[in-house]
């Protein structure tokens, strides 16, 4: 992570959010991913220096959390939920189909660098199962075909908008910056809720069935 003055200022602002600087380690790792796409050894060293920690202390944290990647992922990182409910609802089939379709295995990237796939755990959208995440944006109620179409569009550079998310799917690095707490101004884009979220309210308004 070669640091510009602007990067330094951003890192300092992240550190300043917290009463104690060490708390900034996670957002700083997200920030590192927004620069390099993954956590490079250099970024471990930079963060250690910034926070006055040993490098081992930073790598201990970086290797604990699965969202921090040790090697590059695709511009679009696709996570297929294969936890039990999504799996039986079609997640297993979708994940198998995507691997086959893209010719890559779990945690691998297509040769054009566009798409990587990973099987993920429950993403808190079970009423929209089966769920696919792209750069940690929701693609709800997926089928094998819709998932294939999604990755094809990604490789052509025009993925459809997430089901419940911004109007356009940001890249992995762009979204990593959001996870670091840096606003991209898109909070007001997209729906406030999907149909399942509103189901109970709708029924209540109709008189409780």
């Amino acid at each position, binding site marked *: 992570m070669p640091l510009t003055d602007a990067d330094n200022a951003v890192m300092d602002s992240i550190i300043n959010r917290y009463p104690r600087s060490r708390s900034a380690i996670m957002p700083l790792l997200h920030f590192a991913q927004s620069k390099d796409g993954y956590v490079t050894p250099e970024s471990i060293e930079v963060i250690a220096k910034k926070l006055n920690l040993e490098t081992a202390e930073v790598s201990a944290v970086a290797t604990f959390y699965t969202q921090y990647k040790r090697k590059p992922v695709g511009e679009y990182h696709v996570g297929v939920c294969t936890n039990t409910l999504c799996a039986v609802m*079609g997640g297993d089939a979708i994940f198998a189909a995507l691997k086959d379709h893209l010719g890559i295995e779990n945690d691998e990237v297509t040769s054009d660098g566009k798409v990587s796939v990973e099987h993920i755990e429950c993403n*808190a959208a079970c*009423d929209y199962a089966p769920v696919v995440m792209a750069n940690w944006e929701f693609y709800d109620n997926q089928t094998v075909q819709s998932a294939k179409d999604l990755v094809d569009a990604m490789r052509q550079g025009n993925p459809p908008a997430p089901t419940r998310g911004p109007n356009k799917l940001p890249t992995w690095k762009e979204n990593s910056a*959001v996870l670091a707490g840096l606003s991209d101004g898109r909070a007001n884009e997209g729906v406030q809720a999907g149909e399942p979220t509103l189901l*109970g309210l709708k029924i209540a308004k109709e008189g409780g069935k």
Partner: protein
Amino acid sequence: MTKLTPVLSAFWDQKDSFTIEGYKRNGGYKAIEKALSMAPDDVIQTVKDSGLRGRGGAGFPTGMKWGFIPQGDNKEHYFVVNADESEPGTCKDMPMLLANPHVLVEGIIIGSYAIRANHAFIYIRGEVTHIIRRVQQAIEDAYKAGYLGKNILGKGFDLELVLHVGAGAYICGEETALLDSLEGFRGQPRLRPPFPAIAGLYARPTVVNNVESVASVPAIINNGVEWFSSMGTEKSKGFTLYSLSGHVKNPGQFEAPLGITLRELISLAGGMRNGNKLKFWTPGGSSTPLFTAEHLDTPLDYEGVAAAGSMLGTKALQIFDETVCVVRAVLRWTEFYKHESCGKCTPCREGTWWLVQILKDLESGKGEAADLDKLLDLCDNIAGRSFCALADGAASPIISSLKYFREEYMEHLRNGGCPFDPTKSTLFATAEAGAR
């Protein structure tokens, strides 16, 4: 028939429900005016009197938790919200924060005021970018409106609120692991005592509350204790979000008084998919022992579910019909616990490693009846022996599935493999669902 009670979800159908304007139009940020005019101890007492219990799984009385914070100790206090929602099947806090993050912000202001905290954090899981955007925006807008920062509403109360984004670790939903993570360490559970109320974040008195618990507070302040406690059952007061997922016709969120039954909820959801039979379900996420059709009329409150041998948990009702192989379901959950075990203690780290291997063999038909007893004995050596409750959760689906479906395990062994067709359980197995 129990009537639904949309409170938190009351105006989620308005397109701008997540904006500060939308929230205020629907009465938002009125509760802080009231709460900040009360003595902090009176706020705590109100929440105590309401009977509000934690909505994150354990059901501990929220007001009592606030009351544990020592006062006059000349130490910083911290108010921390657990928005790490990761328990399989649980999907209530995330849609709430997408639709209305401000209600959480308002609840945090009240809670922080009550426990005399001038610094609050929301620890949100990292895999939900758009929700993170919404919460971040809500915080910024609340600052701009003078609801956060210095001298809130001119009442002399200061509060800084920081959104902290996780990075993929189920265990951080455990409150002490969450605090370690928030402090910049590996998210592994801490030894207790000391409890967070005495030495939590940065070793200071800290309250850690679930999103839904905190979000329920503004309505209690606005509408009063009697209003809240008129809903629900004797020891489980109020309304809550029930999340139905899986093989029902219309999955979704249902805000109802505590004590509603699954039979009622399935009926609200339009019945089972294709009229299939209910096979098994989780009352509160994968860590709560499985129920079957015999539990359809169990009141879904803390006591009712416990009396029937499980836990209300997060009210994550994952519904599985007769097309689902219970061995496959349990194996997948077990793989989840293995993946999410933090590694700190032996029974969880090594036990989940072993359980997965045994279940894989059983699913593929390898083994004998004695292996089922070995599996149960192993669960006995893991559950209740580990550092935190994660391993208890890992053992739950195994023990409960063997209780209700031992014969199905045996069927795998006799059959030399799984007798189920996995395509039949998918969403796109039916034309109707596939067209969506």
